[in-house]
């Protein structure tokens, strides 16, 4: 039932019927004010209570002083998608308090510092004013930390109002401060104070509360960039070359954080890896191409503008057939766009990255597990296919907090692909670098340093024959491109297959990928309630395979749902299945925020119910 109805109800009964584990908290603060600690404390405490949660940070592209919002979705049903309305507003930013207030639905809750001045205070919202200054006055911290701990006041208030287990808040704080007693104590003291004050001074008028569940047992909370970084480490990365850019930076940060403990040589303590901060993305791309050529498992992570700068090197990697892994944590483009907002706008660009006839292998993780798993597999695919492999994640997956089952240890041994040793060469009596020996489009390569006198070959981005010698001959050029096309078809068969959930009798199919997944899952439930049964195919890689054709063939209409303006995947799917061009519909939206389930279901019902 809607909050509206509740309102009226509670007016009658005077005693609101409670809404348990199913609401959204929107914390509005100023960035750089340390609210992250407070917000992660709340979300982790709820998580530790066994309640499904998801946290999304909507932050500005500057370092401090601008508005930022952290939304916590609490969902007993386990939905993790963004929802556009929130029931509980923590209005701790005077710049935006009125706009934030105006955005609330009637009957919603608003926590705020008691001295917060609203221009027009709505009458249909429940207010809880908090004496922030008073509660933090005696705290034993240096002045500049005062603001930080002030955020603990709303944590304490929520603990009381929502009935969050205090012990879990302690646990959350100790997780955050890695067990350091002092900060834990200082912060918890405020939480307790605030909770007590609320208990003694406020009457709860709203219906929202939480109750312990066991829906998060053995799960962890993590962001996709950390997951991807760990995947890269367990995938055996040996060289990282990068240039800082939001929102990809934290992926390399994670790698830097975990490498020392996981990848130092036990005897010598030396590094089995190199992380190089390049002077720009051209250099980062060039460095991993050089490293991949010489045999390293090399990677970089970047975002839109960096991808544009890597265009020429991506073409070289494709044509000279050099393995490398390139993560694109997608943000809003075109151009510099909005660095701290999410999109899936680089799909077309990356698939065709490079001038001339270029087509790349692209992985599309849709969960924390896949960020980890594809972090591992990207290297195997790159070395097997001897080509740059792109991993397209985005800001929502990469920088927000997601629940996930623990990651599985990679069972498949590392695949270094077709590399000839000196012994091989002795057996074979030589080799032709670009000869399609196995008819899969993939030649055999040697690594520099191979001591065999016949090991050397010359790599170039210009025309070459099977022996890798320079050639301008038309037949050589054509044969080479035809082999590369064969290789692309080989890739088609070995990249991760789509995940398909076909509902018998469903006439409507949904095709999506990446961070849109949770919204689609929720939207399908909404649609089902409205009598629209749907099948679902979540794409996990490019190039597209036969399954895509089959799936579309089984449905009257397929909606390609994505977070960009041009319906980029819709275009690629249409090109892949011209025979079904008219069955495909594009649901593309891009305003910087993750898609909501409601948006998707409304779009589809709008089209299906006429």
């Amino acid at each position, binding site marked *: 039932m809607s909050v509206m109805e509740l309102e009226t109800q509670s007016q009658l009964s005077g005693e609101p019927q409670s809404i348990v584990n199913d609401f959204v908290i929107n914390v509005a603060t100023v960035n750089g004010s340390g609210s992250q600690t407070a917000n992660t404390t709340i979300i982790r405490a709820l998580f530790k209570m066994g309640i499904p949660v998801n946290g999304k940070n909507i932050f500005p592209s500057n370092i401090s002083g601008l508005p930022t919002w952290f939304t916590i979705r609490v969902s007993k049903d386990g939905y993790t998608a963004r929802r556009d309305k929130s029931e509980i507003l923590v209005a701790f930013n005077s710049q935006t308090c009125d706009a934030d207030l105006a955005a609330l639905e009637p009957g919603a809750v608003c926590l705020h510092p008691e001295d917060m001045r609203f221009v027009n205070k709505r009458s249909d919202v429940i207010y809880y004013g908090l004496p922030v200054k008073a509660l933090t006055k005696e705290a034993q911290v240096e002045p500049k930390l005062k603001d930080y701990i002030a955020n603990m006041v709303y944590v304490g208030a929520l603990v009381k109002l929502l009935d969050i287990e205090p012990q879990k808040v302690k646990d959350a704080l100790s997780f955050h401060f890695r067990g350091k007693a002092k900060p834990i104590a200082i912060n918890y003291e405020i939480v307790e104070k605030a909770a007590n004050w609320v208990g003694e001074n406020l009457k709860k008028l709203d219906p929202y509360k939480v109750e312990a569940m066991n829906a998060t047992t053995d799960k962890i909370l993590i962001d996709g960039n950390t997951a991807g970084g760990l995947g890269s480490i367990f995938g055996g990365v040996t060289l990282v070359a990068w240039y800082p850019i939001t929102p990809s930076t934290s992926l390399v940060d994670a790698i830097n954080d975990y490498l020392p403990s996981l990848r130092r040589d036990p005897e010598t303590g030396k590094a089995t890896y190199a992380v190089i901060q390049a002077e720009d993305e051209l*250099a980062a791309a060039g460095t991993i191409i*050089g*490293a991949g050529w010489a045999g390293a498992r090399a990677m970089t992570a970047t975002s839109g503008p960096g991808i544009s700068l890597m265009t020429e090197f991506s073409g070289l990697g494709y044509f000279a057939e050099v393995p490398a892994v390139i993560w694109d944590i997608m943000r809003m483009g075109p151009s510099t766009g909005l660095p701290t907002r999410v999109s899936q706008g680089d799909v077309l660009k990356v698939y065709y990255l490079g001038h001339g006839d270029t087509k790349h292998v692209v992985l599309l993780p849709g969960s924390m597990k896949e960020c980890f798993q594809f972090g591992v597999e990207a290297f195997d695919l790159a070395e097997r296919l001897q080509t740059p492999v792109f991993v397209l994640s985005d800001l929502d997956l990469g920088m927000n907090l997601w629940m996930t089952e*623990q990651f599985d240890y990679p069972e498949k041994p590392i695949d270094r692909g077709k590399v000839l040793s000196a012994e091989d060469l002795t057996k074979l009596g030589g080799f032709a670098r670009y000869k399609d020996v196995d008819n899969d489009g993939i030649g055999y390569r040697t690594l*520099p340093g191979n001591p*065999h006198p016949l090991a*050397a070959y*010359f790599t170039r981005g210009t025309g070459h024959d099977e022996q890798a010698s320079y050639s301008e001959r038309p037949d050589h050029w054509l044969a080479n491109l035809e082999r590369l096309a064969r290789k692309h078809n080989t890739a088609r068969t070995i990249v991760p297959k789509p995940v398909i959930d076909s509902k018998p009798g469903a006439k409507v199919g949904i095709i999506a990928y990446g961070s849109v997944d949770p919204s689609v899952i929720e939207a399908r439930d909404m649609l089902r309630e409205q009598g629209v049964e749907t099948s679902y195919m979540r794409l996990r890689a490019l190039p597209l395979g036969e399954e895509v054709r089959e799936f579309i063939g089984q449905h009257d209409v397929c909606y390609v749902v994505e977070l960009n303006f041009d319906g980029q995947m819709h275009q690629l799917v249409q090109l892949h299945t011209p025979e079904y061009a008219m069955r495909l519909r594009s649901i593309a939206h891009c305003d910087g925020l993750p898609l909501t389930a409601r948006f998707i279901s409304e779009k589809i019902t709008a089209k299906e119910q006429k």
Partner: protein
Amino acid sequence: MTTEARPTSEGNKKLNLLGLDRAEYKGRPSTLCSGCGHDSISSQVIAVAWELSLDANRIIKMSGIGCSSKSPAYFLNRSHGFNTLHGRMPAVTTGALMANRDLKAIAVSGDGDTGSIGLGQYKHLLRRNLPMVYIIENNGVYGLTKGQFSATADEGQVLKYAGTNEFPAIDLCMEAIISNCGFVARSFAGDAKQVRELLKAAMSFEGTAVLDIISPCVTFNNHDESTKSYPYGKAHEERLQDISFIPTFNEVQVEMNEGDALDVKLHDGPVVRLRKLTADDHDPTNKYSALKILEESNEKHEFITGLLYINENRRTLADVEHLVDEPLATLPQEKVRPSREALDKLMKSML
């Protein structure tokens, strides 16, 4: 890596310490214009590699794009080579050398490839200091695109096709010195002996050694007035020193150090002996003196060649990054994939 050829007669072939004939260090036939300075540099590379008995399998030949950048195809067929992108050889080489720290790179670039499109990468490569010989085949023009001025062309120079160059020349040696490069030399493709001795020293230097070699483009920039031409170079070259490279094993020679000669000992033994030829008191181990002599010779429009600056005190990037001794490229799975327990521990810590 540096040992010198002792004549062993096998048939009438002269073999080096690896028992290899000079021909084994050759490359493919050149497709450059006959007389191009670049080809004479290639033949010096071949000579030196053979004389020093270099192991071709541990050398990589790197280049960008240009006539000069084609050169690696014309020497050391037994070495892996990578003809990369225009101006981007430094980044690719950085990756390759980090992937396998046993490798040494012989890199060839042009004045356009390094001074125009590649200036940024050139400077940042030198900051990182990788084990390589960075040869700039400097002809003041873009040869492969038919003779436009590059950034090293002299201000005021006139060419039939390119017109007049109105911009001050970039001095790639000065750039290298202020970027803390530890081995900076200038030479002239027409001065085979000097090129050879400098190449030997550079090959033995631990770190990036820059050789800015004036290498005439006989097709587009070889008029007498051009400072990048054969006639000009032959007429005006002023050698700072008489350079001789003394490989490790000849201890004797190193002892008998003569009056005016300066011996610079390199990390693994060999010595570069510099016998002064000019009046000025240039000390090649002093950065500031190197800047001075370059600044002055530029003002006086002099064409000085020789070892401008040498200082082996910087660590190479592999050491800075504390890399394991084995090449990263060939580390076995046990070394690069953490254990099942490690992942388990990690996951638990995130519960």
